[in-house]
């Protein structure tokens, strides 16, 4: 017997699901413990069974699942623990624990609320189920909880509908809902994965605050080692349903024993990488891009500044209807992109960083001519002479379509499910009438080898590949026409870290071998740091800072860039998040040099470093 009181003890837990012609063992003989008042992180890649464990504790796993083992929950130290798995499914006893003694929050704040009930109704519900309270008391309690979760005006939020809140605000409301009964354990299933990095930092801070204030335990299910290092007391590492390693965060991060964990840490891009240092994916892929070599060797650079794409004064507004009352409401224009200018040099990789809604994807779409801007100019420098991208027609446009290609974020929906990989890879060639049928087949073979798959895979359909493989196929398709510029829109955001490392390395190799130019759009600063030569930071449709990578990462000038960098959680215990300076990313806290609508202009700090600031601000003041 342990002398320590364990709040939750999972013994020998196995969960399996029936699948066509067999069973999948999602969790295999897992053992773990959760101590009261501590944060225990459950870490693993997608498919490792971490979410399944979280749900099985509450008995809300899929009805098809077969579960064995014990989950002992000892709410109070003086009572014998109760085996949650032995309770009847959806019975009165387990229901009185759910939401009451064990709360849960989920990854998707957008879909976790019912869209047709108010926030207050849904928070209040937990109290209605578990407590004997009058409606007025319930409302008071719910509003107090909303206030604790960081809402300035809980009275108003109580009567709002979920779709009226932003993602981060919804996650706060979700936390309020899970905690309104003051549970002794909170299961947080990827609570910040869907959020922007500054919002993520705020939510993590909130979770920690509340955890300390309410003295509850947290089971934090996540794939992000940076989040773990910043929040957890104990860590359990899960791989393919098995617990590989568990212990205190200190032990796990400083003395990882299992090769898997060490591999996982090597696969995460971080800011302290030596120049030229490569990520080490868990499984290296052997690629062969020799077949593609030479064919699309970079065209001889015209004399001069070697700029491939010159973007000037790009603006794009979307008309939205303000939700002022019922259907009637003034139309308002939302400036998605506001006077954006930058250059992309031949053979370089320009990173475009920003949070959701910053306009970075719109810029990417304008560059590939999927969206027409209201204003601005894009000029592509070609050996034959400059080409106005936005005005290109006929043969020029056809040429442009071949020279600029895009890699999309979602590897699932960006490949047609009823085309084989062969069809997917040869279709661009057919559209642009490249070569004979035999040539196209040969090209498909070269492409698939270049991304580390074999020619046998050409006859398979996208659904039979994993996410990372699909993303590589998406890259191969983008390469089919021998483009010069690849726009990668959040190309690795949907992938696990080890797979992300594979894809990033692939993109790097291809760039080196084929002389490609990248416009790399991402919200992940560490990835951009790994991939890019220069970085532009976007906020509210404008580029607030653009600089060579090292300069931006080491000596950021704009307060937004600083806030963004400060909010990145490092998978390193010695560099904890500075929670004190989080939550100040709003424009209101920016110094006077960076605010004011009219006089903002890009100020050159030398060495290609530009920052958006007041026209008459002086440089030393900016650097302060």
């Amino acid at each position: 017997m342990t002398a320590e009181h364990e709040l939750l003890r999972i013994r020998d837990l196995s969960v399996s699901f029936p699948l066509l012609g067999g069973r999948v063992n999602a969790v295999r003989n897992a053992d773990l413990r959760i101590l009261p008042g501590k944060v225990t992180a459950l870490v693993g890649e997608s498919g490792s069974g971490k979410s399944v464990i979280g749900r099985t504790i509450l008995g809300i796993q899929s009805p098809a699942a077969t579960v064995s083992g014990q989950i002992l929950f000892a709410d109070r130290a003086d009572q014998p623990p109760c085996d949650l798995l032995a309770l009847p499914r959806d019975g009165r006893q387990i229901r009185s624990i759910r939401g009451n003694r064990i709360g849960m929050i989920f990854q998707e704040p957008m879909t976790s609320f019912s869209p047709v009930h108010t926030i207050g109704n849904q928070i209040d519900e937990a109290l209605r189920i578990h407590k004997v309270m009058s409606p007025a008391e319930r409302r008071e309690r719910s509003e107090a909880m909303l206030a604790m979760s960081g809402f300035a005006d809980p009275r108003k939020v109580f009567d709002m509908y979920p779709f009226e809140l932003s993602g981060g605000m919804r996650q706060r409301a979700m936390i309020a809902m899970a905690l309104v009964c003051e549970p002794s354990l909170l299961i947080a299933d990827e609570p910040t994965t869907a959020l922007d990095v500054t919002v993520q930092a705020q939510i993590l801070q909130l979770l920690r605050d509340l955890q300390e204030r309410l003295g509850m335990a947290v089971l934090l299910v996540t794939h992000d080692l940076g989040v773990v290092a910043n929040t957890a007391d104990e860590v359990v590492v899960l791989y393919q349903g098995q617990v590989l390693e568990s212990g205190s965060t200190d032990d796990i991060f400083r003395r990882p024993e299992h090769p898997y964990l060490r591999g996982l840490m090597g696969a995460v891009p971080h800011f302290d990488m030596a120049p030229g240092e490569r990520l080490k994916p868990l499984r290296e892929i052997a690629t062969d891009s020799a077949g593609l070599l030479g064919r699309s060797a970079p065209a001889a650079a015209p004399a001069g500044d070697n700029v491939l794409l010159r973007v000037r004064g790009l603006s794009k507004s979307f008309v939205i209807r303000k939700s002022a009352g019922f259907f009637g409401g003034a139309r308002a224009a939302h400036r998605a992109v506001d006077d954006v200018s930058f250059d992309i040099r031949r053979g370089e990789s320009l990173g475009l960083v920003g949070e959701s809604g910053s306009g970075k994807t719109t810029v990417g779409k304008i560059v590939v001519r999927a969206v027409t801007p209201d204003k601005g100019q894009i000029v592509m420098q070609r050996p034959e002479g400059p080409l106005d991208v936005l005005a290109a027609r006929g043969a020029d446009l056809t040429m442009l379509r071949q020279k600029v290609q895009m890699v999309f974020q979602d590897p699932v929906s960006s490949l047609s499910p009823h085309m084989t990989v062969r069809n997917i890879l040869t279709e661009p060639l057919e559209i642009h009438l490249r070569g004979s049928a035999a040539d196209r087949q040969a090209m498909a073979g070269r492409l698939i080898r270049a991304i580390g798959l074999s020619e046998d895979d050409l006859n398979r359909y996208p659904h039979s590949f994993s996410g990372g493989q699909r993303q590589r196929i998406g890259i191969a398709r983008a390469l089919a026409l021998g483009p010069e510029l690849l726009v990668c829109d959040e190309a690795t955001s949907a992938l696990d870290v080890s797979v992300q490392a594979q894809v990033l390395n692939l993109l790097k190799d291809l760039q080196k071998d084929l002389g490609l130019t990248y416009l790399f759009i991402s919200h992940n600063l560490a990835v951009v740091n790994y991939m890019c030569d220069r970085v532009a930071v976007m906020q509210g449709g404008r580029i607030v800072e653009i600089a060579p990578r090292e300069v931006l990462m080491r000596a950021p000038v704009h307060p937004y860039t600083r806030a963004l960098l400060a909010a990145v959680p490092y998978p390193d215990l010695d560099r904890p998040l500075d929670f004190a300076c989080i939550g100040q990313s709003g424009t209101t806290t920016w110094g006077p040099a960076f605010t004011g609508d009219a006089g903002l202009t890009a100020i050159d700090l030398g060495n290609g470093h530009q920052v958006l600031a007041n026209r008459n601000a002086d440089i030393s003041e900016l650097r302060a």
Partner: protein
Amino acid sequence: MIRYILWRVLVMIPTLLLISALVFTIMELPPGDFFESQIAEMRAMGENADMAEIEALRARYGFDKPLVERYFHWVGGMLVGDFGYSFEYQLPVTDVVGDRLWLTMMVSFVTIIVTWIIAFPIGIYSATHPYSWGDYGLTFVGLIGLAIPNFMLALVLMYFANIWFGTSIGHLMGREYLGQPMSWDKVKSILEHLWIPVLIIGTAGTAGMVRRLRANLMDEMEKQYVVTARAKGLAPGKLLRKYPLRLALNFFISDIGSILPAIISGAEITAIVLSLETTGPLLIRALQSQDMYLAGSFLMFLAFLTVIGVLISDIALAMLDPRIRLAGGRTK
């Protein structure tokens, strides 16, 4: 909200005008008019038609006037409740339709209610016990209901009613009450006769609704917010009623727009087979004999019901779903 309703009602006016123009055009499309088909019919039966009388009738009803003038005359009449004159029955259209309209509406209304009463529990059961024997059995019965044409079901039922009970189930009331003024006994007789047509007409609708309710509900039960509610400790039955069912109702309400005209116009053939005193057989006959005012009034009536149904469902949807009410038309 009030602004929205006003706006929606205003939009109905041009819609109905457009429909009336379409209906009028369609009525005028076939060559000839009621009198010509009357003459043809009389000649076919070997009678002599009095051309002078026919010409006089034509002039009296304005058939010699230009098209546009007749259209406005028709539309203007409808606005003050004058739907024109049925040549076939030699009566104003309102008198011909008369009772039949109320009987039709009653049959339709009862059918809709019965459809809902049967479809709802079955749909919910099927969705909460998918792929079970109960689900498969009910699905099978439902598909049969969907597949068998209504008039066929009517014939079969009439045959068995005759063999087993020795009674005729035709008509909406006992024969002795036909053409009689409304009385308590007549009402009782109507209620006795009502269930057969209601069941027959309602089968396909019920089966279709069960399938849609099942599909919608099963989709909703997969959603994340259902898991959230379970994690709160909500009891399964209450959860089902509060969340997925509530959201599955949207389709149900948007159905109202199409259900009104479908039930009234879809029951004609059944009504003929069962000799029901509803408007269906009247419409068919009017179309056959080019009795244009009668047919036109019917078509306008159906169009009006559709427009009203859509209006009701739009308003109900806006009231039920805050996303439509508060964020309607907002682009992402």
